[in-house]
């Protein structure tokens, strides 16, 4: 728990666990800490700190929820559900796996996960970026939105489960399939069901798509769009950009921006 702390650092008295400040870097030991106390500390310190390191995180929910400052947060351990929900600015590095609801209705900022994440990642995401090194669970990227310059990006290094990008209305969702074996396809079913905006890029073969979606080949402008995103991904996780880009990508877009316009009579 004292990882990286020298004896010179001052220990502040806190009833909520140990908080150590050093040159604008705050270190929090979250062992046995209630999520409410932890998030209270984050909100308090995010105004002044450049960086906050949280150790011994063990399932605390809502880390980074509705935080507004451009602080950098490093999470060591396993954060609980709704990490970065409604978040608006910070960059969170998770050195471990994340659970469900990462980036729920997130507005801006970044989440970088050195591991996998659970279900409903990026639900109704409105902006910012999420990078996940490994796989994700079900219903990821649903209801992602965009308008004008506000355009969210969600990159999954591994593969995803069913209902990926369901009801997607905007943004960019990238699935790289880096955890798949050579002859293995993505297994997700109903990809893009109800999709009416945004783009899903998948590296590798997609098994089953929603009836509202069509599969296209990448064009020059798609590659121009994808390349910097994948470069950023590779920068975090030490992958080779060119190796990733040599394999064929599929582009999934909706047939129509109004998939359910003809369901009704008046």
């Amino acid at each position, binding site marked *: 728990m004292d990882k990286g702390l020298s004896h010179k650092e001052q220990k502040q008295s806190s009833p909520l666990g140990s908080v150590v400040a050093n040159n604008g870097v705050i270190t929090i030991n979250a062992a046995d800490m209630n999520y409410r106390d932890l998030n209270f500390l984050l909100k308090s310190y995010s105004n002044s700190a450049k960086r906050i390191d949280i150790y011994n995180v063990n399932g605390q929910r*809502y880390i980074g929820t*509705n935080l507004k400052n451009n602080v950098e947060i490093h999470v060591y351990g396993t954060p609980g559900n709704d990490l970065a929900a409604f978040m608006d600015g910070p960059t969170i590095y998770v050195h471990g796996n994340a659970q*469900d609801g990462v980036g729920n209705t997130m507005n801006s900022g970044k989440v970088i996960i050195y591991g996998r994440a659970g279900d409903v990642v990026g639900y109704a995401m409105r902006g910012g970026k999420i990078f996940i090194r490994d796989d994700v669970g079900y219903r990821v990227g649903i209801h992602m939105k965009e308008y*004008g310059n506000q355009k969210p990006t969600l990159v999954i290094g591994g593969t995803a489960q069913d209902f990926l990008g369901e009801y997607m209305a905007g943004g960019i969702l990238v699935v790289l399939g880096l955890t798949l074996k050579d002859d293995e396809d993505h297994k997700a079913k109903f990809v893009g069901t109800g999709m009416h*905006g945004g783009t899903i890029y998948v590296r590798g073969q997609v098994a089953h798509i929603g009836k509202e979606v069509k599969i296209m080949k990448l064009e020059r402008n798609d590659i121009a769009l994808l390349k910097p995103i994948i470069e950023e991904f590779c920068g975090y996780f030490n992958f080779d950009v060119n190796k990733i880009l040599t394999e064929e990508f599929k582009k999934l877009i909706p047939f129509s921006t109004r998939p359910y316009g003809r*369901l009704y009579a008046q």
Partner: protein
Amino acid sequence: MKSYVEPEFIIERDNEKCTRCKVCIEQCTYGVHYYDPKNDIVRSRDENCVNCHRCVVFCPTKAITIKKNPTQYTENWHWTREAITDIKKQAETGGAILTGMGCDKSYYTYWDRILLNASQVTNPSIDPLREPIELRTYLGAKPDKLELEMENGDVVLKTKLAPQLCAETPILFAALSYGAVSFNAHLALARAAAEFGTFMNSGEGGLDKRLYKYGDHIIVQVASGRFGVSPDYLNVGAALEIKIGQGAKPGIGGHLPGEKVTQEIAQIRMIPVGTDALSPAPHHDIYSIEDLRQLIYALKEATDYTKPVAVKIAAVHNSAAIASGMVRAGADIIVLDGVRGATGAAPKVIRDNVGIPIELALASVDQRLRDEGIRNKASIIISGGIRSSADVVKAIALGADAVYIGTAALVAMGCTLCQKCYTGKCPWGIATTDPWISKRLDPDVAAGRLVNLLRAWSLEIKEMMGGMGINAIESLRGNREQLRGVGLTDTELKILGIKMAGE
């Protein structure tokens, strides 16, 4: 294709009264009236008429009458005109029949079978004209008990109270989303709520930044589509409401037809222009009471536990058990929307056949929460067809803390319940996003009319309370002794928890 559907309404124009001023042509958004220059006469396309009365009201010589089409199918109690017409429409289009507003079928309105008490001789009534009667209502979780302390000779409240909404009358404006209604309608509701000291609900379509200054009087809604749910939106509202269900369409999602998704609506909802704004039935992160708790606390975390969080469900068969779960999940306010609850767009078959009357749902939820000893942990707001101050008083005596009014507020602004909200052509400038039609609703005039309605109902509520000898709304809440049923079965009386008149 030749339509087999006959016009529902026939327009009769008194050509002696008609001055050919063409106001009707200008006012009709459905293209019913047109001028025939050759014969110098105004004619109508009856098949387009929705009976909204815009032309009738605006005709300066009152030359227009709208009648039900007298041409009827052979009389048949079972095969009504509506049943036959709907089948014909579906045979022509292959689509589900879409409609607006609330269920218009003849199910019991239990309010009309419940009568109020008044004091006579003993426990004398109170005259509201000379004695204060308190309507102020606090909405939010109440503590199990109050702990007091003496501090420097003063009594100090030791118990930390949960955040509360303070309304000057137990009437709030129901969720009408921006997009379903025009900006001017939203603005009028916000202004009226602020002026009277009550609340409007933003609905699920976000909140225009121009309304942020009324934030202290706005409950902001979060639905499955998460439209407009920005950090600012959460921070600006006085309370948050998670919308799970809606009385007009329990079990199915929100659906704003693409016709109403203009540039402005697309921007605030962050969806493509002209698309249908889809808010599916389930929140895809809520599959259990535990999941609901997760979202409730996400919102509480996001707002530092400073605002009450409400959860709204449609009144359905096992509302009582669900409501108990909602309270245990941390909801500060639970909202029940009955079968008469209205909508901007819903499949008619759902609107008219799914859900239960709010009176029964309210009575059973209130009783259940009392039985479990958790009634104080959440306030109850009910909605769905509240038409008058008497409905409000009966609702509170049955156990509600407050009511939401949606349709009544729209009627105050001009709505005539033509049920065509989903077309986006509302001739009264309410249920439309068309900038030209929206101009018809003057937000100042509309806000004034809404304030008048609140004032009138509040006065009537005080009169009724005074008559019962009750001088604070707190003493009316759940006071079912003030209610008696007429024409109800034993089971109905038992569920409502009221006695038969005469008992």
